[in-house]
Structures are given as structure tokens and as C-alpha cells.
């Protein structure tokens, strides 16, 4: 059986853009930098494709934290980043209404070689979740 501490490690979902953040996450591995194992990187062309309920459902299902790692202003899809930023703000409002801590959803930009930014985001979220969840 799984001891309680392992079963209850809060899970972090990382939505990483195919053009920037996903290769950025690969880069972290390539330089053999370590980060907690409770992190699950999912490759997406553009996280702008997810509607507000997608995020809320993730929390309902048991994901403890979500980091949306976008391309920021390097986004290859015109207009997608600004639309995404607006949507994440809207999700934050909805999270507030439902009593979900809003800092459990983070939007940031991670480039193909931004290993430091990737690690900072992951460690911050991990710390937040392990100290509060």
C-alpha cells in the first residue's frame, strides 16, 4: 500500500506550449536540473484553447496547482497570449467565488531555454501547495 505522505503529495499540472515552454522543460532535463516529481507537463499547441471550466474541473478532479507556461509575447499565434491572459484573470475570479486559492493557478512565460524561470515557477508552486494543502 501507498503510505499517506506519497499518496497526498499535491499534483501540479503544467500546461506547456509546444513552441516555447515544452522545449524549455526539456532543456531543464538536458541540463540535469532537478525538481519535484509531482509535476506533470502536458504539451499543448496554445493553452488559449482551454475554456474557464477546464481549469475549474482540473481543481475539482484533484489537481492541486496549475502552471500555464506560455510563450508570453513570443507566442506564434497572433492575439492568443492576450486572450489567454484575460481568460486566466477570469478564471481567477471564478476561483475566488468558489473559495479556491487563486495563486494555485499561475500564468507565466517560459522560453525554450528558460530553465531558471521553469524551476522558479515549479519550486514556488510546490512550496505554496506543500505549505497550505
Amino acid at each position, binding site marked *: *500500500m*501507498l*503510505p499517506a*505522505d*506519497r*499518496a497526498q503529495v499535491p*499534483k501540479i*499540472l503544467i500546461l506547456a506550449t509546444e*513552441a516555447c515552454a515544452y*522545449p524549455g*522543460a*526539456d*532543456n*531543464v*532535463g*538536458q*541540463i*540535469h*536540473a*532537478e*525538481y*519535484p*516529481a*509531482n*509535476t*506533470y*507537463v*502536458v*504539451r*499543448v*499547441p*496554445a493553452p*488559449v*484553447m*482551454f*475554456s474557464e471550466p*477546464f481549469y475549474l*474541473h*482540473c481543481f475539482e*478532479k*484533484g*489537481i492541486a496547482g496549475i502552471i500555464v507556461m506560455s510563450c508570453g509575447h*513570443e507566442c*506564434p*499565434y*497572433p*492575439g*492568443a497570449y492576450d*486572450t489567454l491572459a484575460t*481568460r486566466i484573470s477570469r478564471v481567477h475570479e471564478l476561483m475566488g467565488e468558489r473559495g479556491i486559492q487563486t495563486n494555485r493557478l499561475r500564468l507565466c512565460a517560459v522560453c*525554450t*531555454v528558460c*530553465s531558471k524561470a521553469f524551476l522558479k515557477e515549479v519550486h514556488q508552486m510546490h512550496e505554496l501547495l506543500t505549505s497550505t494543502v
Partner: protein
Amino acid sequence: MDKSQAQDPLREADNGATAHTLRIGVYVCHCGGNISDVVDVERVVQAASGLSNGVVTRHYPAMCSETGQNLIIDDISNEKLDRVVVAACSPSLHEHTFRAAVARAGKNAYLYEHVNIREQVSWCGKSDPDGATNKAIRLVGAGVAKARLLRPLAPISMDAKRHVTVVGGGVSGLRAARDLARIGLAVTLIERSASLGGHMAQWHLVYPTEDKARDLLRELVDEVIGDPNITVHTRAEVIEASGYVGNFLLRVEPEHITVETGAIVLATGFDLYQPQEGEFGYGQYPEVITLDQLERMLDPEGPTSGRLERNGRAVNNVCLIHCVGSRQIEGIHQPGPDGKLNEYCSRVCCTATLRAAGEIRRRFPRTNVFELYRDIRTYGRGHEEYYDEASRLGVLFCRYEADRPPVVSPAEPKKGPGLICAKHPPGRSGKLNLVPFSAEEPDDSALVVQVKDTLTFGEELEIPADLVVLVTGMVPREIDTLVDQLKLSRSADGFLQEVHPKLRPVELAVNGLFVAGTCQAPMDISESCAAGSAAAAKAAALLASGRIELDPFLAPVDLDVCRGEGKCVEACQYQKAVTLVEVERDGRKVRHAEVNSALCNGCGMCTAVCPTGAIQVEGWRLDQFDAMVDALVADYAETEVSHA
């Protein structure tokens, strides 16, 4: 079966199997220990076999090998697999490989899902193998969950321009352009400066052949200029790029021309490290120069007509300082204007310096040559011979540590207790005489270089120098516009980054873009030529047929579900790929969304706002993501590794 089911390609392809009865093969790669040294692959396979669709589950040392791929092909045939999942390295390396294997077995290539358990699991989780194994189990679970919902897709086949643009007219760009033209492709060569040849045109003799650089170049430039397949634009820059593999569109200034091209070879070259003001006396003392300036000086066609002189005086003592601006260490070296340290070795400077040092000793035997180095790296074929030759010719080597770099200062009357080495030409043994400093024998060199020499048990030497040569390395050239327009990846040191140093060494992450020469990393002329030829061969192979296959990750509309509300049309305000059309269906007029696949870029802005889920990006459907999240949070208690 109702009509919508009959039209569902999933059901047609899978002979009526439902998502949970599909036969899925799951393969976990050891990557020769890269994965299996950390991740318990047997546990991952055991977990996968517990999933409802895990019909075949295997682990294997190298799935990308021919034998590994044949495992998949044989299982598809013998076990009647409907879907394949491979957990291995990053999809950027082998997603395409395994899709191709699935296709070779007669299945649709898009019925394949790739799970990354190397870069994003084993390599970043070495100190927590249990955690890494559990993570791999969940990620494989998510991969299987997505695989259940994959649909067969048809790649989009498009015309491709049989034309390549080479950006940069240095030796690797010239070599790429010439090779491409000989294969029969049309080439446009765009060079930022006024002339072709790049840095090589400024160099005198080049190792390992001692050829005159300009003679080698002249031959190549003549071939390029004389080739009817090549159009050359000098003083020209790409300022805007759009399109995709096979059909890029480049705007070139200041000539206001537009180039339609199928592939792009980046051969933008390097800059030489510019020493900071006062670094080893650079900019302070006119006797401090860089290696490229020394090369110009040694060139009979150069500014001194080949005479080794400074301030009108012959040079008696030359001191060459290696690793200036290279192999920088945090806390020891000052970051450059961009705040970055150049931590890498520039590779080519050692042999270039040894070559120049040997030439000085041969041509000016009365001139003493000192090389102050951290390490000598003569890595290539015929390079070490330059070190042997320089030693034989009496070049004196001193080794310094990074934290005790040589100090260059104006020469003053010396007071000891250091050692001075001056005006004592090599004896028969070929060795210079190191003699204690003597006030009776003043040296008139303008500068003195102090160095703690670790080859002689840390002796503090004072070396007179009327010429100090800083051996500066290669740094990435400023090509921000190209990086921005073409979405180029850079490595941590700022050079352009290939997809994989061994498997795809001249390809960039964006399909149709290739890299050649020193914009990728410091390399010498032989290596730059090889890279240029390699990029040419890859680009030519890509465009040979004049057709290109693209992934069909666009957003079609499910007409049975679309209610024609038009929210997707609003969302697609940038691409304007979605419109509402009115059609007659079952005898009545209905409105529905229609996607222009030539304009759709697959971003999914429409997907998020569609109230019915009718519009989805193929390959990235929302139900697939939902299923992945479900799998990530599922209960794997029986198969996960627990802390004993």
C-alpha cells in the same frame, strides 16, 4: 448504428471497438540507461498492463533502434493493435520516428501517442527514483488515456517551393549555397555586409593545411557568383518572415524584395569577443591587440605588409594570452554588457594561436613568443602537431589559473624578485633562457606581463612584451530580428540550437529551418564547411519532390454539433479562418461554421469559446486533455512505488 456513428472515422477505423476495448500497445524505453537507471521500467510496464487497454506492454533498451521499431510493427500485425504509446525521450526527437513505424505497419500514423519520460522524468529526477517511477506511471496512464481518443488523420500535402534561402555569405553559407545549386535547387543568398567571405576573408593562413584563406574563398565565391541557380544579395537583411515549411515568405531590405522559399539555411556566423576596456590592458595600451589583428599584421597584404611591428618598431617579445572572453567563471570574470558570462570553450582559438605563434618563430626567429594558457585544447585532426611544432620552435608556454589571470602593465624599472626572460634567443636545445632580472640589462619593451606559472611550481614571472595578443573567442552574433521572426531556439550560451546534436545536428526546431556553421557553436573552417554541406543535403532532401506533408492539426467543425452561433468567428479575429455559412440540410436552411484550412493555424482560440464543442483542433481535442487529467489524478495505489 445511427448516421453520426457510421460517419465517425474512429469507429470505421477500429471496426466498432470503443475507447475502452481498443487494443493498445505500450512500450517503455530504457534509452540505454538514461531512463532505466532512474525509472523502474518494469514497474511502469506492470502499471500499464493493469490499464484496460494495455494489450501489449513491453520495455526495451532502445525503442528507436531498428529492432525496437520492429517490435511495434510486429505487434501491430500479430496482436492487432489499434493504438501505440511509446514512453521514451522528448517527442521532439522521436515522435516522428514512431509515427513512421506505425505507418509502415499499415496503421494511420496519428494513432500514436508519445510520452516523455527522459527529459521530463529521469533526467530531472535522479535523486528521487521512486518519485520518478510514479511520475512515469501517471504520464504513461495519461498517454494511454489520450491514445484511446485518437482519431486517424490524413496529413495535408502541399506544394513546396524548390528554392532555398541561405542567410549569411561566410564560408558555411557559401558552401551550402553552392551545394544546393549543384543539386539543382534555386538559391537566394542574403549577406548583411558588402562582400562575401565573412571572417575568413580577414584571415591570413589557416590550419591544418596552411592554405591562404582568401585563395580558398576566392574559388568558392567564384563558383557561387558564377552559378545561374544562385542569386546573391549583399548589404541585405531579412526583416520579416512568415509562412511554413515549403512555403516561407521573406521580406528583404533595403532592396524591398520578397523571396518565396521552401527552406532556410541560417549561416549567420559569429562575432569575435570584444574585450572590455582595460581587460588585460585592452584599449589602454596600443600594444595590446587581438588575435585577428595579429593575423592581419602577419598577412603580406595586410596593413603592415606582413611586418611584425608596433608603433613603428619591430616586435621583439610577443605575449599571447589564451581564453580571453571564453570559459568564464561566475565570481571570477565580469559579465558582458548583456549580463552574461561566456562559459563555453571557443575551441578553435588554441590551434589558431599555436599556428600563428609557430609562424612568428619561423619568419621572425629573433622574436620571442610566449603563450599564457589555461589549457591547450588541440582537439582536431592535425591540431596537436601545431603544439608540437610550436614547442620545437621555441615558443615558451606558461600556464595560469582562471583565478590568477596574467596582469598587463606598463614596463617600469624592475626591482625583482621575479624572473625575466628577454633578448635571449633560443639555444640549440630550442629552449629560451629564463634569467633572474638584472638592472644592468634593461628591457625596452613597453609592457610587462606578470603571470603565476603553474608549470614551474607557481613561479611569479614578469615577461616583457612589446605586443600582447588577446586570444578572443567566438560569441553569438546579434540576430534578434531573425530569432524573433523565425522563432529560432537558442541554447543557454546564445548560439542557435539544433534539435539534437547527434540525431538531427543541422535541423532547427521549426520545420524547414537549418543551421550551418558558427551561428550554431564555435567551429573552425573545416567544420563550418561540413555543416554547410550537411544543411544543404538536408534542405535538398526535404524539397526534392516539390511536395511537403504537414501535420493536419487544424480545427474542423463537427456539423452534427455546430449550432451556428458564430462565437468561433469572433474568436478567430486574427486569422479570419472561420466564417459562418448557410447550407441546406435535410430540407431546411441551417447556419454552421466553416474553417478555411489554408488560414487556420491550429491555435484553438475557437475551441475555448464554442458552446457545443463542435470545433476542435485535431490531435489536440479537449476530450483528450480531459482524459489525460483524469489519468493523472487516478488511483494507482497498487502499482505506484511506495517508500519502504
